[in-house]
């Protein structure tokens, strides 16, 4: 296992491995997502309280799950980089930040749209929504720091440090937001407790979550591949790749 991880560590071999993995991840993501959406939209029963707005859950819940786990994955890549100095971990971190931020944004907006029909207000200071908002700020911090530092190498170290600091603080923030919510929100309505879902609704949700994970990995891999090429552009294997790709493309004019 150890040398496999080491092989994955070197950008060139990662590029080769991801060449084979990417189509698999892509098709699996497409498959899960399409089945999940069709099932959730068409066949799942409307919720007895919320009626059809419950269908928003099939997007909002996976998005907020992904938001948190993408931060976890990004921060663990940061830890790997700070401890073992594997260059690929730093590239992975910098590529995960924008995806994570976009998913957190998606979770935020879908959460507020879900709130509109149910409570009539666009924004509700619910514990989970607020901690997703804070997570969004954390992502923004990472992206702001990455773009502020021109020199790529030290930007990697700085962003990994910030990600790790954020990771250490995340549980504290989560606790304090939840605790703060119970203080001010006397009424018990909130998105936190998932209503006991019948199996017909729970299963499409599971498909959607798995689909989102596959989607996240495939998009993440795509970004890492581009970043690896940019970083290794002086290496011969990149030169050959670019030239061969160009010849192929000239031949059949397809991207």
């Amino acid at each position: 296992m150890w040398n496999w991880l080491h092989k994955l560590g070197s950008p060139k071999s990662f590029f080769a491995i991801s060449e084979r993995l990417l189509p698999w991840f892509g098709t699996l993501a497409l498959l899960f997502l399409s089945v999940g959406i069709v099932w959730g939209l068409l066949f799942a029963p409307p919720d007895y309280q919320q009626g059809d707005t419950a269908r928003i859950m099939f997007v909002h819940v996976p998005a907020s799950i992904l938001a948190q786990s993408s931060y976890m994955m990004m921060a663990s890549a940061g830890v790997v980089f700070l401890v073992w100095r594997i260059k690929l971990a730093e590239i992975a971190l910098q590529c995960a930040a924008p995806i994570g931020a976009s998913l957190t944004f998606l979770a935020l907006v879908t959460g507020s749209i879900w709130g509109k029909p149910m409570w009539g207000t666009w924004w509700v200071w619910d514990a989970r929504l607020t901690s997703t908002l804070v997570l969004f700020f954390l992502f923004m911090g990472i992206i702001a720091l990455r773009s502020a530092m021109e020199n790529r190498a030290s930007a990697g170290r700085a962003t990994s440090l910030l990600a790790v600091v954020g990771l250490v603080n995340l549980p504290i923030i989560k606790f304090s937001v939840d605790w703060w919510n119970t203080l001010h929100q006397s009424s018990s309505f909130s998105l936190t407790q998932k209503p006991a879902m019948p199996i017909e609704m729970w299963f499409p949700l599971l498909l959607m979550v798995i689909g989102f994970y596959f989607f996240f990995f495939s998009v993440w891999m795509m970004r890492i591949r581009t970043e690896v090429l940019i970083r290794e552009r002086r290496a011969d294997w990149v030169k050959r790749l670019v030239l061969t790709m160009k010849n192929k493309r000239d031949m059949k004019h397809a991207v």
Partner: protein
Amino acid sequence: MQFDSLSDFIQMNGHGVYVWAVYFLALGVLLLNVLRPKMMMKRFYKEQYIAYTLQAAVSNEKLKDGSGDYLK
């Protein structure tokens, strides 16, 4: 099938607007995430191709035979 007609499916008895807004937004975000790396990759190939051909022209023929064996 929960809905008997297409129009009912779109309305979703009044909540349709929100549900569709969410799904289109989700589609948008997902597509954006997919297209962004593809575009960056394409831009990288274009720029690098020009850079390499320029460099190849300068340090001539070192690359030409190199690219041959990669296809094996």
